């Protein structure tokens, strides 16, 4: 049979261990506080008490759990600034009610505290911050709290304080995450508005190719969708499409709008637009990667016969390959100053023929797939018909041609695959 003293130690220390477990492992904050108060009161057989959380903003104590304090006990109490300072000064040590008389707080609540037999209060201080307060009534034994009792109370109260502090941090974190999300959303919308304004400005300069940038953005988006990219990646590709010709803003208007095939000098001037675009876009912080690269390399070809750098195959950034295909498609399907647009069947044939030469075959496949899905009604998309006109897209023989091209592409893709391994 253990001695009384041993048994008492076991009883209080298991309460201390339990409170540590509670704080560390309970997900339900209310329940954690509630159980902790039971453990604190039960460890020393204290008849009544309460745990309050301190709100720095309202200078207010709000009780999270009370036992034996009756219905008339105020569940919210305000602190003076001087109280908070005093608590922070003395740190986390018990204050006997007889010593508390100088506190503004005590003076305000003296009557109720005395009526409820509150004998001890303990501010909960974590990292120099007042997070709450514990109120304790009389012991069942009728004895006063001795120093060993106070040490146990302090240890248990510290656990409760940490629990409240953790909860505060979590709430703060959740609030910040939400704020960040909103901020990011705002930024993204601002960015997209800017991008669209830019695209419109680019297209305005070129009266024959009105809407070119916007269409290239849309086609790029369709390709990325067909590739199964994430929403964010798709958005990035669309932006790259919108901005790919931003460098044209610095090219002479009469060169861009020349109603004839431009000469070599003019052509050299025009061909600077990818590099200029890159310079314009590089200093901007884009939420998506590779937007400047798409501008720089959107006139490169798989076979190395493009410009400005004559890059080949995998030297060309993937996003630039997408924009290149979208760009070429738009060039073929819209009227140019010196050339009328070509019929859809010719364009598809051209895409197929140039897969592996100018275009990445899998991108042609993706693009044709997107087109086919729209025409067969497999997807609810109406993009192609909206951008190119119903008659143009629904011309006879387009669907079989697309299917045929896709079959052929399969063969081309596997050929490229064999060739490159």
């Amino acid at each position, binding site marked *: 049979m253990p001695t009384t003293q041993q048994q008492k130690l076991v009883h209080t220390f298991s309460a201390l261990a339990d409170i540590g477990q509670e704080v560390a492992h309970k997900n339900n904050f209310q329940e954690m506080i509630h159980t902790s108060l039971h453990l604190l009161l039960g*460890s020393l057989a204290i008849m009544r008490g309460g745990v309050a959380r301190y709100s720095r903003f309202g200078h207010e104590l709000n009780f999270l759990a009370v036992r034996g304090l009756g219905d008339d006990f105020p569940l919210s109490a305000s602190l003076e600034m001087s109280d908070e300072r005093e608590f922070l000064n003395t740190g986390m040590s018990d204050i006997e009610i007889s010593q508390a008389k100088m506190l503004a707080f005590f003076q305000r609540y003296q009557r109720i505290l005395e009526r409820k037999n509150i004998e001890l209060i303990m501010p909960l201080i974590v990292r120099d911050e007042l997070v709450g307060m514990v109120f304790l009534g009389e012991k069942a034994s009728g004895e006063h709290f001795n120093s060993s009792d106070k040490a146990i109370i302090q240890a248990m109260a510290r656990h409760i304080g940490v629990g409240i502090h953790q909860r505060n941090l979590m709430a703060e974190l959740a609030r910040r995450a939400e704020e960040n999300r909103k901020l990011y959303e705002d930024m993204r919308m601002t960015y997209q508005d800017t991008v669209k304004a830019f695209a419109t400005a680019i297209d305005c300069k070129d009266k024959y190719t009105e809407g070119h940038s916007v269409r290239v953005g849309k086609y790029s988006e369709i390709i990325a969708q067909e590739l199964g990219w994430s929403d964010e990646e798709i958005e990035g590709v669309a932006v790259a499409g919108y901005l790919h010709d931003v460098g044209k803003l610095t090219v002479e208007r009469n060169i861009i709008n020349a109603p004839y095939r431009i000469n070599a000098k003019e052509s050299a001037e025009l061909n600077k637009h990818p590099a200029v675009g890159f310079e314009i876009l590089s200093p901007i912080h884009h939420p998506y990667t590779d937007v400047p690269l798409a501008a720089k390399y959107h006139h490169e070809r798989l076979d190395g016969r493009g410009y400005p750098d004559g890059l080949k195959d995998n030297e060309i950034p993937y996003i630039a390959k997408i924009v290149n295909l979208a760009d070429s498609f738009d060039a073929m399907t819209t009227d140019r100053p010196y050339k009328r647009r070509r019929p859809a069947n010719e364009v598809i044939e051209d895409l197929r023929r140039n897969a592996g030469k100018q275009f990445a075959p899998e991108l042609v496949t993706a693009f044709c797939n997107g087109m086919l899905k729209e025409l067969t009604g497999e997807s609810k998309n109406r993009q192609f018909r909206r951008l190119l006109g119903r008659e143009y897209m629904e011309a006879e023989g387009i669907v079989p041609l697309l299917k045929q091209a896709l079959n052929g592409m399969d063969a081309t893709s596997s050929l490229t695959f064999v060739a490159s391994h």
Partner: protein
Amino acid sequence: MNTNLDIPVRSEGEIATVFASDYLNKISGEKIERECKRQIDAGCTTLVVNFKDTEIVNSIGVSILLGVIDAASNNGTEVIFSEVNEDTEQLFEMLGLTNHVKIQE
């Protein structure tokens, strides 16, 4: 009369007996406290808490019993703890619970 399916209660005249069981040591032990308070409110003059199925009493259990003692004293109801094992009796004594309740075989 058994008023609560979870908590065994026996009520004879003005004496109500509530069985503490092992529930007492968990937050669910508040059910026992509520049942005791119900019996007190119903006007029993003596409330017996029976510990025959209670191996040990931890701090949560003590806290819950203090709630019962407090409610009883506010109503002038006598509280008796019965069939308490030796360890638990010693604990109750040490913590001062025996100042408020009678311990009975």
